[in-house]
């Protein structure tokens, strides 16, 4: 057997899957931009993805902000630079930790749920039934989730940013002895619009990635309960990896601006 054959087959499989994913994304987005719009379904997804994820994102960013304040104090105290802790906390949260941590948590909560729901619909022929009832599944199932993911993630991250900064504030004031007015002043003074904008741009991209991967793996799942399980795992793993990769690419893009 030719030793290059499995390598070639793997590359072809990868390219084939990539093409399939691109086509799926195109169909999902294009149907999201064309009438008819299922406003009720979009609203339902917005509540599922946005409102019900608030506690998870809030807790994650709160503790991330608190830990960040403590850890930066450990480091900066060695250079007598404790005063920059509010700046470090707010920049880290808005530019990086807020969107990335929220993205990863949403990948676990929402991406898995979407893949499981659509996967079950696929293996129980509910998606086929939709088509026979003259309803386009891309328009009915995929587009509302993509729209909700893209719009709700920035809002979630914005709330998460505020909670994360508040977590740093609590530790800074009540544990590290900062004056509360000085802490808030430093936080606001060094925060620029671009810091928040770059974080929210990432959030929108992560929202798209999480919902797209959840929909894609669920839509193409097969083989009963095991297939749905694999779809769920693949959705979470692939969206987490893509979040980390795209995080670098978006950071690089804003870095060059």
């Amino acid at each position, binding site marked *: 057997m030719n030793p290059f054959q499995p390598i070639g087959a793997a590359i072809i499989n990868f390219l084939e899957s990539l093409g399939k994913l691109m086509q799926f994304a195109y169909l999902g987005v294009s149907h999201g931009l064309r009438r008819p719009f299922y406003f009720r379904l979009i609203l339902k997804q917005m509540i599922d993805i946005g409102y019900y994820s608030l506690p998870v994102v809030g807790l994650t960013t709160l503790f991330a902000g608190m830990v960040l304040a403590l850890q930066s104090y450990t480091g900066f105290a060695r250079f007598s630079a404790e005063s920059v802790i509010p700046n470090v906390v707010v920049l880290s949260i808005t530019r990086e930790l807020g969107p990335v941590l929220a993205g990863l948590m949403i990948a676990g909560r929402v991406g898995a749920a979407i893949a499981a729901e659509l996967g079950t619909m696929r293996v129980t022929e509910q998606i*086929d*039934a*939709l*088509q*026979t*009832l*003259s309803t*386009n599944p891309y328009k*009915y199932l995929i587009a509302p989730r993509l729209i909700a993911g893209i719009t709700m993630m920035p809002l979630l991250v914005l709330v998460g940013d505020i909670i994360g900064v508040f977590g740093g504030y609590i530790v800074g004031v009540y544990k590290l002895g900062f004056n509360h007015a000085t802490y808030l002043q430093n936080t606001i003074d060094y925060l620029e619009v671009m810091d928040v904008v770059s974080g929210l741009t990432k959030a929108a991209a992560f929202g798209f990635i999480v919902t797209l991967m959840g929909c894609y793996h669920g839509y193409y799942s097969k083989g009963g309960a095991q297939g749905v399980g694999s779809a769920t795992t693949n959705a979470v793993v692939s969206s987490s990896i893509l979040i980390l990769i795209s995080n670098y690419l978006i950071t690089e893009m804003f870095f060059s601006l």
Partner: protein
Amino acid sequence: MMLNAISNNAIPKIRMRDIYKKFGDKIVLDGFSLDIWPGESMVIIGGSGSGKSVLLKCMLSLLQPDSGSIEIDGEDITKMGESDRARINAKIGMLFQHAALFDSMTIWENVAFSLIQGKIMSPIKARDLAVEKMAEVGLGADICDLNPAELSSGMRKRVGLARAITGNPEILFFDEPTTGLDPIMGHVIDDLIIKCVRNPCVTGLSITHDMKSARRISDKITMLYNGKNIWSGSTDMLDRSGNDYVHQFINGLSDGPI
């Protein structure tokens, strides 16, 4: 159930010609051809894995055949765009093997799905019509607000049938309608199918390997084997088909060419 419709119509309701479909190296449909005339109730029989479900999915445009044509009312659906397919799908009602009810919706929302999504009528009117259709398949209004998970498999199948007939389709497809049901419920579902396809405006196509059910609900039977149409004829002729494959299959014999 009317065979005399054939003489009055030159165009079959469904015409399949030389359909090929393969998955990887496995050929599932190998030049399958069949005509189904308006008002007929056709049953396609065949063993598990013989390609019956793939054939049905091709007719529903859920799968695209590799080659060949499938015409409904003279229009080739294999070459149609999205909007034309939706127009053709509106003529079709489908009862899935396990009913395929939407588990996020109540029973009446399932039955009235096409009416509400197509904005054909208001939800209040759609609910009334759903109750009417449910009564046609022997279901009471008391289950309207239940979820599909709360029903038995026989009741789910009836709801699936009510959903299939809600849009008054010209063609009804039934995928293994009696699979997984006890004999009495199987008979009840058969009677409901006969009631639906007895309407001269409705053409029925069922796929099954339940021979008792096939004999009850069909005017004509076709046997699918290795992706080919190996025998087609009226139900009365089934026992005198002269085909060894058909003989073995309908009698459930372990010895034979299959």
